[in-house]
């Protein structure tokens, strides 16, 4: 019996070492389907092996296809967003004289942080944005500094470095406070569940 199998593997050595075949045969069921088609090469056995392999092959193809689709689509999307934001920078709400307007443009485009601050026109606060009630109650446990950091990071999309410059703190302080704040928001939820 095993002689047949060894011969089979020898004859088809190259193909049997292809990754897709190896992966296919790693599953017990598939391997036994192969063995039974070699030992008893009935039409039925061969068909079962064929079907199983087809399904495996299809799955691999689908995963590869969709993974690439998602990956490249997200990249394109991010590029569109960043281009759109660069082209639509400021909303001038009130009339200003010509010279004032130039001054405003110069000041804000030279500073990426004020550009980010401008994006958030409504100047929302964290409490306005969060809908989960538990989190809202936990927000009261945060210090003012931590709340401000959360707002800058998640509403205005500041990086940690930018936050540290803006608030005149060290980067370590910022990342420490950010982590603490997020943990506080998370922890309380867990404790409530245990009770």
């Amino acid at each position, binding site marked *: 019996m095993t002689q047949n199998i060894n011969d089979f593997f020898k004859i088809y050595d190259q193909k049997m070492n292809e990754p897709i075949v190896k*992966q296919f045969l790693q599953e017990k069921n598939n391997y036994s389907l192969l063995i039974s088609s070699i030992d008893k090469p009935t039409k039925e056995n061969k068909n079962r092996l064929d079907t199983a392999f087809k399904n495996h092959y299809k799955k691999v193809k*689908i995963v590869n*296809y969709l993974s690439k689709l998602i990956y490249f689509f997200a990249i394109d999307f991010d590029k569109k967003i960043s281009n759109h934001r660069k082209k639509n920078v400021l909303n001038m709400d009130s009339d200003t004289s010509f010279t004032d307007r130039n001054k405003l443009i110069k000041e804000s485009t030279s500073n990426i942080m004020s550009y980010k601050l401008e994006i958030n026109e409504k100047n929302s606060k964290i409490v306005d944005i969060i809908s989960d009630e538990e989190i809202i109650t936990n927000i009261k446990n945060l210090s003012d500094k931590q709340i401000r950091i959360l707002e800058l990071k998640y509403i205005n999309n500041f990086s940690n470095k930018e936050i540290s410059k803006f608030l005149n703190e060290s980067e370590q302080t910022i990342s420490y406070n950010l982590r603490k704040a997020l943990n506080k928001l998370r922890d309380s939820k867990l404790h409530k569940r245990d009770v």
Partner: protein
Amino acid sequence: MEDNLIKDDILTRDFEEIIEQFSLKIKKSLVNTPYQEREDLEQEIKIKIYEKMDIINNITAPGFFEFINEEKKEK
């Protein structure tokens, strides 16, 4: 990812199954997007997948013996 695709006998895929199985992959792809835009990106990805369901369901695969008897293709 391959471990999640357990349903062996299904030849046509359900859109909802696909989305469920790829949900983590989709979440991961949101990481470089600003927070305000993430929901939008997630939606658009799902729409894109829906548009491609036809292609997905028409993917062909060789049978086992067909595969091992193939001439090695020049890459």
